[in-house]
């Protein structure tokens, strides 16, 4: 988790020997540059924000500066840490469960045509219902607390993985399927040795989209069902017109989302080194 990977447009090209060199360079040194630029970029944006608050003398009930918000966190680190953990727990649970369900669903939809015809259209239809609108239903079913929050996160995190798993399986080159057929591979072997591994990069792309959405889902859950978590903090801060606390919670959320995204991104790089190498 050393950097935010920003794909560079320049592709090092050449024979195998050349490419080895290029790879060694990117894995060690070259990524540090973009990381520094990323940090500088974030710092620059924060500075600009601070500058705007000061130069235009924006009142505290409209906008809080980042410095103020960070000071607020520093003043009550335990408070923000605890609530962040609550949100993190709901996001992670929702993302984990939604992700597993999504992958299973996507695979079943792909492999069983009967289910595809029945389930896929209704799934898409259900997905068009805003999750915020269904959230109160979860409270009816699961009450106030972690379950409801997690279910909102789950309902949002689920769909990208259905699509990405399905698309990943559908994009397996037809030659690979023919290769399996000519070699009289069993369906199970074809799935296990070719198709399911082939769709992993696509699943990871889905996970990268899903993870931030899961955090959003957890916050929505906390808006509606919460007595804890960053969503709850925002809600309380809103009722007190305490924008400093609200922005402090925003910062916590942003940092959490970014960290989760980077964990997923990094995991993808560790687990699928061949994908990093081939998509370079």
């Amino acid at each position, binding site marked *: 988790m050393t950097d935010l990977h920003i794909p560079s447009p320049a592709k090092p090209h050449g024979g195998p020997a050349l490419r080895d060199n290029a790879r060694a360079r990117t894995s060690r040194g070259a990524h540090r540059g973009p990381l520094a630029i990323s940090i500088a970029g974030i710092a620059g944006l924060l500075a600009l924000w601070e500058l705007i608050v000061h130069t235009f003398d924006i009142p505290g009930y409209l906008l809080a500066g980042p410095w103020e918000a960070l000071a607020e966190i520093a003043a009550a680190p335990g408070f923000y840490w605890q609530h962040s953990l609550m949100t993190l727990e709901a996001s992670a649970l929702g993302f984990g469960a939604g992700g597993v369900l999504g992958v299973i669903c996507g695979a079943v939809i792909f492999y069983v045509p009967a289910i595809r015809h029945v389930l896929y259209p209704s799934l898409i239809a259900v997905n068009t219902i805003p999750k915020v609108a269904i959230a109160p239903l979860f409270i009816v079913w699961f009450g106030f607390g972690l379950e409801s929050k997690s279910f909102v996160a789950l309902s949002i995190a689920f769909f990208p993985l259905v699509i990405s798993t399905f698309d990943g399986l559908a994009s397996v080159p037809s030659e690979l399927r023919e*290769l399996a057929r000519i070699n009289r591979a069993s369906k199970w072997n074809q799935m296990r040795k070719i198709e399911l591994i082939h769709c992993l990069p696509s699943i990871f792309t889905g996970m990268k989209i899903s993870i931030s959405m899961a955090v959003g889902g957890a916050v929505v859950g906390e808006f509606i069902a919460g007595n804890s978590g960053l969503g709850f903090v925002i809600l309380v801060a809103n009722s007190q017109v305490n924008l400093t606390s609200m922005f402090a919670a925003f910062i916590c959320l942003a940092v959490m989302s970014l960290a989760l995204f980077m964990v997923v991104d990094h995991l993808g790089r560790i687990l699928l080194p061949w994908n990093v190498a081939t998509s370079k």
Partner: protein
Amino acid sequence: MTTSPVIELDAVGMTYRSRKETNTVLDGCTLSVGRGEFVSIVGHSGGGKTTLLRIISGLIHPTEGSVWVNGQHLDQSLSDMSMVFQKPVLLPWRNNLQNVLLPMEFRGRVTDTMRAYAMELLEMTGLKDTARRHPYELSGGMQQRVAICRALVSHPDIMLMDEPFGALDAMTRDSMNLELQRIWSETGRSILFVTHSIPEAVFLSDRVVVIGGKPGRVVADIAVDLPRPRTKAHRYTPEFYEYEQQISELIGAKESIA
């Protein structure tokens, strides 16, 4: 050489029917491939060459006629076949040795003998040192050689090749032709080879089958009587040129000599 044909096609036809139209791609194709023979199929693109190959591989069923492999009807045949595609289609997460062994994994457990044979094949194609490397570390020509090793590892009776060098540059293609000739003579497989390139077909083949017309039929079946092993120098002999010209005229003047 044609005493015991490994492949026999008897009046094979292929018609695709949809609600709106029927499209006959192949009609009355009769041909045979002898044991250990190298036969090329040439013709216009879209002329049904690949369809013919896919029928022989059993991937699709002909709507007419029948295919016999080693004297048995294709559906009942237990003969091993393998295919090399235009793209290498290797699995990027496997190293080259594991890629070569994939067909054996599909058949069951991989034994040490199989592993040794896979290494032997990689050595034969000059890839011994890259066995533990991954496909993306190799050039296109090297990747295609891995794919050829993969097609040989199961000791297939018949190797089907669908424009395997079509995506390679001319120089790599020439050296791959030399290499394939050597692999073929060393392993003694029967090879059915689809190509666009007339020189390539003449250079490699015992026989060149020309598919032409619409729907595609066997227009000519030409035995290439040139000494083996053939070298680059053979390409510039009048005999070679004569074969090229003959085939080119049979395919039709429209298609330029590649």
